[in-house]
């Protein structure tokens, strides 16, 4: 009609975003595409997803290839960060917020408007419970009021023709709970966006005893030219403690170009140096299942270790935060070709012991025996083939062992493996023992490195969402009306109530109030033994 014609574009946009159809369409699109995204493996090598397509649709490899390239062009292989999925999420957020704002005035009115006395007709519709009390409404009013107040309801009163009406409400603000919950979703999304634009996610491996000034983020595979080009940048970054502008100066290139290159190669400069002082992994019993793994890290800035960040222990579920960057213990491994440092405790059969730090190939003497020995070989995970040939069976330090070659004077040489896990291998034929106490410098720690300035907003949003949902689902807006009507010089007290949730609970509360006031008039109430019928 007239009014609809006058709609401005803004009104139309507003209407579009408040429409339920939009909500349903967005909901279906997000859910539907998300499902597709869980079936196709995200950010995987093409072959993997082509095989998945072959498997699901039972099509030929060729067809799967073309289906794959179409899907890839549409962004399905990195779907959750594709432009259209992000757009869907934004539209969803807009829909959510505009719908909420649209309803807010009505709800605010419900909250702010003081509860009004009910008309007789309304009362007849919702009021049920009541009782008859002795005395005129003026007299009874105070004691009824006291009981209502004691139950936590502050009331106002209205004088009516044949008595009074007390009206009260509680929990009107609980109606805002659902808005808190909805706006929390917006907070979480904003937090996530801050994280995407101003933060990073990376990974770096630091061998024991070494330090790193950068981490790597995921990128498209590098060409060999790019690999070669990357090396001097990494070297210079190591010297400048991960300072990009210093690095650019040292290398004599423009900082912008350097940053562009670093972005391509996935280099994330930290702006300080992180050193792995030690790494250790424990296993459950003699199994290969890790029980706990931890690293000791030191932050180095300006060539010195930062006080409070020296030899800090991190483990899974317990990260280290420095300068807004968090280091998570995520992985571990062996340094290829590393020459470690071995700490051996040598004890003679008479109990004289001595601790030695040795490198591979070092010679040493067993105390009191004069027996000479060489640290000949090392295996991080020693195992034996059926024929007795030793080999390294694992890529983690599940069974560290050292080979010791003995050469006594005039005796034939013999050698033996000493395994850290098996104390029975520590004892030599003459009764003295060699205990491998520590092996250092052969392991590396894998650290997940993250900077996310938006995470606190995400957490805040999560907390407020929980509170909002709790209020919305478990608290209610209750209204209570108590009518006092004169009835032959006595007062009939009638309770009426509404609650937007858990009405039975509220009714039980009213029953308690009635019990406090006197007997409910399910049976006719006799007005006292002393005889109220005097008049």
């Amino acid at each position, binding site marked *: 009609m007239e009014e609809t014609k006058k709609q401005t574009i803004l009104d139309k946009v507003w209407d579009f975003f408040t429409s*339920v159809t939009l*909500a*349903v369409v967005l*909901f279906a699109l*997000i*859910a539907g595409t*998300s*499902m597709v*995204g*869980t*079936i196709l*493996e*995200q950010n*995987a*090598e093409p*072959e*993997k*997803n082509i*095989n*998945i397509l072959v*498997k*699901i649709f039972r099509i030929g490899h060729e067809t799967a290839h073309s289906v794959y390239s179409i899907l890839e062009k549409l962004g399905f292989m990195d779907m*959750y960060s594709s432009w259209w999925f992000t757009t869907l999420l934004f539209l969803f957020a807009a829909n959510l917020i505009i719908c909420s704002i649209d309803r807010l005035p009505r709800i605010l009115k419900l909250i702010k408007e003081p509860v009004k006395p009910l008309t007789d007709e309304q009362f007849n519709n919702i009021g049920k419970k009541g009782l008859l009390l002795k005395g005129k409404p003026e007299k009874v009013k105070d004691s009824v009021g006291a009981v209502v107040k004691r139950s936590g309801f502050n009331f106002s009163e209205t004088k009516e023709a044949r008595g009074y009406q007390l009206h009260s409400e509680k929990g009107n603000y609980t109606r805002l709970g659902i808005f808190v919950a909805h706006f929390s979703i917006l907070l979480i999304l904003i937090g*996530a966006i801050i994280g995407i634009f101003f933060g990073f*996610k990376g990974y770096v491996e630091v061998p024991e005893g070494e330090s790193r000034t950068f981490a790597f983020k995921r990128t498209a595979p590098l060409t060999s030219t790019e690999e070669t080009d990357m090396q001097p940048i990494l070297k210079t970054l190591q010297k400048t403690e991960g300072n990009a502008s210093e690095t650019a100066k040292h290398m004599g290139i423009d900082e912008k170009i350097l940053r562009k290159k670093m972005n391509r190669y996935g280099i994330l400069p930290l702006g300080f140096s992180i050193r792995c002082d030690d790494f250790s992994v424990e296993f*459950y*019993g003699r*199994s290969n*299942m*890790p*029980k*706990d*793994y931890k690293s000791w890290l030191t932050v180095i800035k300006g060539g010195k270790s930062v006080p409070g960040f020296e030899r800090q222990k991190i*483990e*899974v*579920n*317990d*990260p280290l935060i420095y300068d807004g960057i*968090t280091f*998570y213990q*995520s992985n571990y491994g062996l340094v290829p070709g590393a020459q470690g440092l071995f700490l051996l405790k040598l004890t003679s059969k008479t109990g004289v012991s001595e601790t030695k730090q040795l490198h591979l190939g070092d010679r040493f003497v067993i105390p009191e025996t004069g027996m000479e020995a060489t640290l000949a070989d090392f295996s991080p995970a020693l195992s034996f083939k059926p024929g007795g040939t030793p080999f390294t069976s694992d890529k983690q330090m599940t069974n560290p062992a050292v080979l010791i070659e003995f050469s006594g004077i005039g005796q034939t040489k013999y050698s033996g493996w000493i395994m850290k896990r098996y104390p029975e291998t520590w004892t030599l034929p003459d009764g003295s023992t060699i205990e491998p106490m520590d092996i250092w410098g052969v392991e590396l720690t894998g650290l*997940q*490195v*993250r900077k996310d300035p938006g*995470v606190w907003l*995400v*957490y805040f949003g*999560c907390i407020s*969402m*929980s509170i909002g*949902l*709790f209020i*919305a*689902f*478990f608290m209610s807006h209750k209204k209570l009306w108590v009518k006092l009507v004169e009835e032959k010089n006595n007062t009939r007290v009638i309770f009426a109530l509404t609650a937007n949730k858990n009405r039975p609970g509220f009714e039980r509360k009213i029953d308690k109030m009635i019990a406090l006031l006197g007997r409910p008039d399910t049976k006719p109430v006799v007005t006292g033994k002393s005889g109220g019928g005097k008049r």
Partner: protein
Amino acid sequence: MSSSQLFGISTLTYILAMIIYIMYLAFRSSKIGTTATTITIIGFVSQTIAIITRWTESYSQWTMLTPESTFILSVLRSAPLRNLFESLIFFVWCLILGYLIIEFKYKNRSFGAFVTPIAGLALAFIDISAMSKEIEPLVPALQSNWLLAHVMMSFIAYATFALSFSTGLMYLILKAEKRTEPSYIFWTVTTGVFIVVLTAMGFDYLKYRVVIKNPDILIKSFLFKASFLSESSVISIISWLAASVFIFVVWRYGHILKRIIGSLSISPDMLDEITYKSIAIGFPIFTLGGLIFGAIWADQAWGVYWSWDPKETWSLITWFVYAFFLHSRLLRGWKGRKVAIVAVLGFVAVIFTYLGVNLLLSGLHSYGGLE
């Protein structure tokens, strides 16, 4: 008695309870009803004892492997919520507890015949899928209180969703009038497919149980290989035919079930109310425990609170479905059949989030590259 014996007793008791509840539906004698409730309570008590026993067993294993850990830490780390088997047991425990509360609150036993089968199926699934029942040491990433809270609350929420699934399905059965009606077709086909899938998995188990060593391999490599995807095209065709015929039979004779439920003293309004209330309780718990605590745990362990991995994505989809349920009901005033369908679909999403992602999608991914 060891926990596994006690679990065995509770499983048998629940299956017995299921049969008696179904008998109660058919004969409606109050004696049978009381028996069903009593047996369910016996099952529940023995399951509770079994869970506690299991807890002490894993406590002693934990303290043996980790003597340095404090008493409270040991108690928390040995809580029986550590693998698929234990989580399913806890789910069934929550479900039965929720059911008993409803039975006493609404003084109505008829839901029993719809809730106990879910418990029975979950327990049967443990054996059919041959999942590991061992008490295994925890890998470091799983040693987290956030994870514990996350798992516990997720399964409480899943149990409430399972209740809403049963009542939603009953509502649909009661309310659907004609065979051509969408809601009638929906419930008969859903129920039919559900039973067909489980039966097919049973066949897989019977045929391949000798070969398999763990459930992952059974489902990843042999799912439906004994029936629909059989090497022999004859078996495959027969399977498809049998499945279609079965679903047709459910569709054709579904009204018998309606007549049985209709003869009981359950009002559709009551079912509708229980469906809504279960979801209204489950949704905030799922949001906090399932999504938020899960995100906090992931953030603590890996530094990523959300990474769109299939598990996370599917729990978000589940969350969306229930959010849709609540909005359509509270905002649009949808009642009855439409929301009941959403409640049923919501639980299908729950099952997929919980089992499908682990067993089907991960299989798709890890085996994708090998062939």
